[in-house]
């Protein structure tokens, strides 16, 4: 297990570095000049040149890359071209919104998806099993922002029970206020996310229900619940956990979209604006942080899987049992 952990960590670092290189190059491939964002109609060529010099995009690409790597290694994400303000602290300030939004939405999605997915599989032959299945299909097809607008129309504009958007100026000083403003966004993301999760849970459960081992366990006298608990659940949960890691990353993307609809001061708005203005340090900062997070989540999902499933430990880890974990 220790060897596995070391290998996995090295892999994490290499992936992050490669992601950084790809990110840096891709951004520069998008046609455009960041200096444009600093200018307005009426700017003279001198002003354009001065703007380029100011933000350093007049330097050769390799030089820019090396200086960026240098900053990164000092955990400094640089300063925005447009606002001239440091990127790191702003990302930190906005994570206060995006992280709770993502995690809460994810948790809610799991809470919805697991029982519903199980039911949809267990009652696959009945009318409500089919209805649940069809609803989850529909949920996958519906865009996040549309669900958000629908919820705003019902709960804010008509019923007036929840705010249509915004976040308290003092962040989490009053957790009640903060949670109130996050309620609709969380539900929005969770509804859309749970739709695809339901389908994973349903198909994993179907596999288990049709398996020989479950039938054998029943034949040996186990109750259905007992057999499901001892054998079925453990098998069904393996593919679901692996998909959860990916889903958490997708939830983050959903949060980015929903922030604009609900006027939340999270990472999403910052990223969209960064792109519009070719503000490389802002885009790079956010994407490096989020890529790192996604890689970490993948790492964690792998570990959890290995804890659940002894077969993975034997075939990949080299060691026989979970000694290090």
């Amino acid at each position, binding site marked *: 297990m220790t060897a596995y952990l070391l290998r996995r960590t090295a892999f994490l670092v290499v992936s992050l570095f490669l992601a950084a290189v790809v990110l840096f190059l891709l951004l520069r491939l998008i046609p455009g000049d960041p200096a444009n964002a600093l200018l307005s109609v009426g700017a003279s060529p001198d*002003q*354009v040149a001065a703007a380029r010099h100011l933000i350093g995009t007049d330097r050769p690409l390799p030089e820019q890359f090396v200086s960026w790597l240098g900053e990164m290694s000092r955990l400094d994400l640089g300063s925005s071209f447009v606002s001239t303000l440091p990127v790191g602290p*702003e990302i930190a300030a906005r994570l206060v919104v995006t992280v709770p939004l993502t995690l809460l939405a994810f948790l809610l999605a799991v809470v919805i998806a697991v029982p519903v997915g199980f039911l949809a599989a267990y009652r696959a032959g009945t009318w409500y099993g089919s209805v649940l299945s069809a609803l989850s299909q529909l949920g996958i097809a519906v865009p996040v922002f549309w669900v958000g607008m629908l919820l705003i129309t019902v709960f804010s504009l008509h019923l007036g029970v929840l705010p249509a*958007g915004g976040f308290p100026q003092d962040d989490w000083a009053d957790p009640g206020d903060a949670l109130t403003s996050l309620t609709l966004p969380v539900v929005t993301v969770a509804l859309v996310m749970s739709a695809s999760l339901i389908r994973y849970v349903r198909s994993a459960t179907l596999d288990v229900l049709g398996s020989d081992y479950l039938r054998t366990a029943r034949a040996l006298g186990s109750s259905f619940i007992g057999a499901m608990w001892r054998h079925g659940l453990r098998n069904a949960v393996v593919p679901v956990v692996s998909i959860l*890691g990916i889903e958490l990353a997708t939830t983050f993307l959903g949060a980015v979209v929903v922030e604009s609809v609900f*006027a939340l001061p999270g990472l999403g708005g910052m990223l969209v604006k960064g792109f*519009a203005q070719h503000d490389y340090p802002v885009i790079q900062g956010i994407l490096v942080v989020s890529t790192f997070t*996604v890689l970490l989540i*993948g790492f964690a999902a*792998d570990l959890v899987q290995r804890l659940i499933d002894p077969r993975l430990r034997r075939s990949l880890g080299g060691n026989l049992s979970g000694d290090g974990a």
Partner: protein
Amino acid sequence: MNSKTTSLIGAALVLALALAGCGSGSSGSAGSSGSNGAGATAAYDPDATVEVGSLYEPQNLDNTAGGGQGVTEAFNGNVYEGLFRLTDDGKVESLLAEDHMVSKDGLTYTFTLRSGVKFHSGKPLTSADVKYSIEKVIAPDSQSARKSSLEVIKSIETPDDSTVTVKLSGKSISLVYNLSYVWIVNSQAKNLTTTEDGTGPYTLGTWKRGSALTLERFPGYWGTPAANKQVVFHYFTDATALNNALLTKAVDVVTSEQSPDALANFTDNGDYKVNNGQSTTKLLLAFNDRKAPFDKVLVRKAITSAIDNKKLLSSIWGEYGTLIGSMVPPTDPWYEDLTSVNPYDPNLAKKELAEAGYGSGLSFTLDTPNYDPHPTVATFLKSELAKVGITVNINVITADEWYTKVYKNHDFAATLQEHVNDRDVVWYGNPDFYWGYDNPQVAKWVEQAEQSDTADGQTELLKKVNQQIAADAASDWLYLYPQIVVASSSLSGYPVNGLNSQFYAYGIKKSGGRG
């Protein structure tokens, strides 16, 4: 389903985000907004908080370092003041300058500063601060949109603490007007991108980026104190979210309504007032006047006459907005109605095309910025021009591509663009400007206008400029945007015009109820 998969997902996320970003654009144009809320309210709460909703968050807090339209909206006249102020109806008034004198040759301006003015930090205002502030705008690294118009300044002297003498390299009738854009900042202030030290009726409370900026009434203000205690600018990126905030009373007023469809929620609703003010934002179909076929006046006139601007405007803004027929909006002193110079008349257009040698038709590419309303307008133009035998190829580009391709490289046939500044007809006097309109007579009038001794002389010459560019159909001025301020009916005293993106908040009165 292990490490390889998850790392792929990480890379896919990066790609997805990168691609998502390619499509989003933002208008990079410079500023325009202005004052005088309607409706008198009887009793108002002098300690009220006014919640303002806006789509224009400042980039940073320094208008010479790329702060943009947002910082002008929040700070101009509220936190910072100039020697002069541009009022909501387009007039220039003295503000921090009590008096000013112009020498006979028009090359020396002497300003006397108002006494008793203090910065928010407590330091009294002196002539050194004025000199510092003007020099900041014309410095080599300045990103101010007004830099070029103030480059006529040769030197600034400060004979004593309350006198500033500005020497010019040539006469400039617009100097006083241009100085209304120069914020007077404390010459010793630091970190002006995140803090402020101005002389205005408000100080900066907090700025939570991506969310809101708070202004607090400044107790040491030299003039009439603000009619409210606090102003909070709430920032939105989505026009629908902004309207929802107004509908749920999370904000009291929207500085500039950009979503025509949403207006129906507020008109005929006693809780709100929809104010139809004057903007200075013009939507242009700009031709590249250098290149065939648009180097021919007749072709440009034909296109102008082939497009039904009235129908275009009403399809986008309904009953709002104005037709102008030239570059000059009604709030500029040299405005006149020129909509009849190139009237909508498809038959005339066909005749003019034939006369220009394009009787069998022509085709051109229209570079269209990818944000509203340009794509809709392009489609409309395409169908209008098809009726007179002109084929339009719509080429959608981002704001950024527009700057590089059209604005800097002049590599285009025709383009759509909004021009937001007031008094910007003078660009037709510059043959190097992106649209390449080159008429030496017009250039001369523009130059002479700037050197006039009187405002009347300037107005007369710029009227000539305006008439000439209309006669030459230098561009096709499709329409003037409306400036729509929607406010709760509990508010009064807010600005309603769209001049220079400014939003003077100190006169806003809020009556009872919600604090």
